[in-house]
């Protein structure tokens, strides 16, 4: 057993972080320490855990191999900064490489706070204490959420005061570099009354040949009447692991649209929760994944309607190539008294190979009246009739299939109604197609 402890001295899963070494304020260190205790006390997911049905548990167990990310040399960091250039026009851009801030173009607006997490915990302790990880992870990844909390030091805290509109998107890049390196990027966005902001997170690997881990938590706290758009683009190396735990808390008349784009990683587990907590609140939950080879996407969602007159609309699409695999488990939960709820949930899987596999588990739990709810899930290949219409116009079958698949995906990201982001995501999808053909 001695050999065992020697071979895994720095596993992020089993070794306590060096809390003091971060130099972060004491209150935050204390919070991280108790999160670590909570995380280590929780077991790894088991076959009998309902939230892990159909999941690849070997992948969750293999997270033990990941270690704390090392600091990077200047050349590597420079290279990553150069690669951090997705959107042409932004109001701010931040690049984190192995959790260290490598570049910052700070957005400026009246009263806007947009800071790397490590700075925010210093300067805005009160706001952070009020909002930082106040939503418990309830869809299976409690252990990993606590693990994240015990280690989070990179990512952004964004606070948009009442009435402030940030027109161009704010971008954050989260790079992981080194074999078995891990990063724990955090995103916390708090919007004041009638404010407006769009934020894009990118999760990427420095090298396609290295396996890394990104274990991110994203909390969107949308104030009354605010408009919040959030995009997570995951294109980690195809041997990497990804955990993305996100929550949306929408107050009265808040309108939140969030989009997950999944291109890379061997295994990606996403858990997304929307709490609709005020009359007129809306949350659109969008996701598009293009897994190939043996990639797996594992998606768990909850649309929780806690108040009357709230709406949510979920559209998850997976275009599955080769021997890839998807799991979708979604629940719409309408609380007692949450009358006049409109909640929709759709999962569509396009099977582009006979060996691809899609599992869908939609669910409804309705405890109120005058509710409009629907859920649906479909899985199937591109039909001959689809292709024939293209062929009849002279378009070859291969091109037809690519256009159909692109269209399948584009229908999702078109719903953001943001031209520049649509084009950027479209490019990511097309790049994936090029790798496949």
């Amino acid at each position, binding site marked *: 057993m001695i050999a065992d402890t020697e071979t895994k001295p720095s596993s992020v899963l089993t070794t306590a972080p060096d809390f003091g070494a971060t130099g972060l304020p004491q209150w935050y260190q204390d919070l991280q320490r108790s999160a670590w205790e909570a995380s280590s006390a929780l077991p790894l997911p088991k076959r009998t855990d309902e939230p892990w049905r159909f999941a690849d548990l070997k992948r969750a167990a293999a997270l033990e191999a990941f270690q704390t990310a090392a600091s990077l040399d200047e050349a590597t960091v420079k290279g990553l900064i150069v690669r951090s250039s997705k959107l042409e026009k932004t109001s701010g851009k931040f690049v984190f490489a192995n959790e260290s801030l490598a570049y910052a173009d700070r957005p400026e607006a009246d009263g806007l706070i947009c800071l790397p997490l490590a700075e925010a915990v210093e300067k805005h302790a009160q706001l952070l204490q009020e909002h930082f990880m106040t939503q418990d992870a309830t869809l299976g990844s409690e252990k990993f959420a606590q693990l994240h909390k015990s280690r989070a030091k990179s990512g952004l805290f964004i606070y948009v005061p009442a009435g402030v509109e940030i027109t161009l998107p704010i971008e954050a890049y989260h790079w992981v570099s080194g074999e078995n390196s891990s990063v724990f990027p955090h995103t916390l966005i708090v919007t004041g009354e009638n404010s407006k902001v769009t934020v894009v997170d990118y999760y990427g690997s420095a090298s396609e040949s290295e396996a890394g881990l990104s274990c991110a938590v994203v909390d969107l706290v949308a104030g009354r009447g605010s408009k919040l758009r959030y995009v997570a683009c995951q294109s980690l190396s195809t041997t990497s692991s990804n955990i993305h735990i996100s929550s949306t808390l929408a107050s009265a008349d808040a309108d939140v649209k969030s989009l997950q784009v999944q291109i890379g990683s061997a295994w990606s587990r996403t858990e997304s929760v929307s709490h609709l907590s005020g009359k007129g609140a809306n949350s659109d939950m969008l996701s598009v994944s293009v897994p190939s080879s043996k990639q797996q996407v594992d998606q768990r969602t909850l649309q929780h309607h806690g108040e009357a007159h709230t709406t949510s609309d979920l559209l998850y699409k997976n275009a599955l190539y080769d021997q890839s695999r998807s799991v979708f488990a979604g629940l719409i939960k309408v609380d007692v008294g949450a009358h006049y709820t409109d909640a929709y949930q759709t999962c569509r899987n396009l099977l582009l190979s006979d060996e691809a596999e899609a599992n869908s588990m939609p669910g409804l739990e309705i405890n109120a009246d005058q509710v409009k709810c629907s859920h649906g899930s479909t899985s199937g290949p591109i039909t001959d*009739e689809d292709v024939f219409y*293209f*062929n009849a116009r*002279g*378009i*070859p079958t291969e*091109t037809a299939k690519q256009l159909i698949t*692109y269209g399948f995906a584009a*229908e999702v990201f078109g719903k953001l109604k943001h031209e520049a982001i649509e084009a950027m995501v479209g490019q990511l999808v097309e790049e994936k197609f090029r790798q496949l053909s």
Partner: protein
Amino acid sequence: MSIEISDLKVNIGDQPIIKGLNLTFPKGEVHAIMGPNGSGKSTLAKVISGHEDYEVIGGKITMDGVDLLEMEADERSREGLFMAFQYPHEIPGVTNANFIRAALQARLPKGEELDAVAYYKQLYAEMDKLEMDRKFTGRAVNEGFSGGEKKRNEILQMAMLKPSYAVLDETDSGLDIDALKVVSEGVNRMRSPERGFLVITHYQRLLDYIVPDVVHVMKGGKIIRSGDKSLALELEERGYDWVLDETAA
């Protein structure tokens, strides 16, 4: 210069649908095929355009002397054949403009890019003629289109692709009279000595607007009678049974 169909025999599964059909329609002419339901009209359209569900067990189809049956559907289209679908397919997420653009791009030599500016100019011009709103360029192909909008969209594609031969399968179905006029005018504008049309219809009504040079009556998988446009009027008046009776006699 024509499409020539000789002794064509087609099965769906074990079921014979087309049973030794002969038909020639040359460039510069409009031929109409009329016939009762189940006569094999739509099957003929699909077989000409290359749909794989239909098994050709005998006969030949040539286009300007080239064997069509040896070609895939997309090759036939690029060679100059067009079919307007009875039920145009919906393609979620692919915009109309991108779809037609891909069709034109497929006709260019490898490495050559379609001129986007010229393309949109032409697209808008053709849409205006068909009284189609510009918003249809950005909408997903046929998705949520009304019956009339779908048929206009078929004619738009034909106008953009400029085929040598066009087969219109029940283009009048689902159209109100205004849409029927617009669609027919679209077809009539394209009539030329360089282009042949085969118009498949159940009703004579369409042929008031697209006046045919030749009318064929199809029944039981064969052409049983051919004549000029007056044959269509006679069919409208007397139904199909008299042709069958005469043929039997």
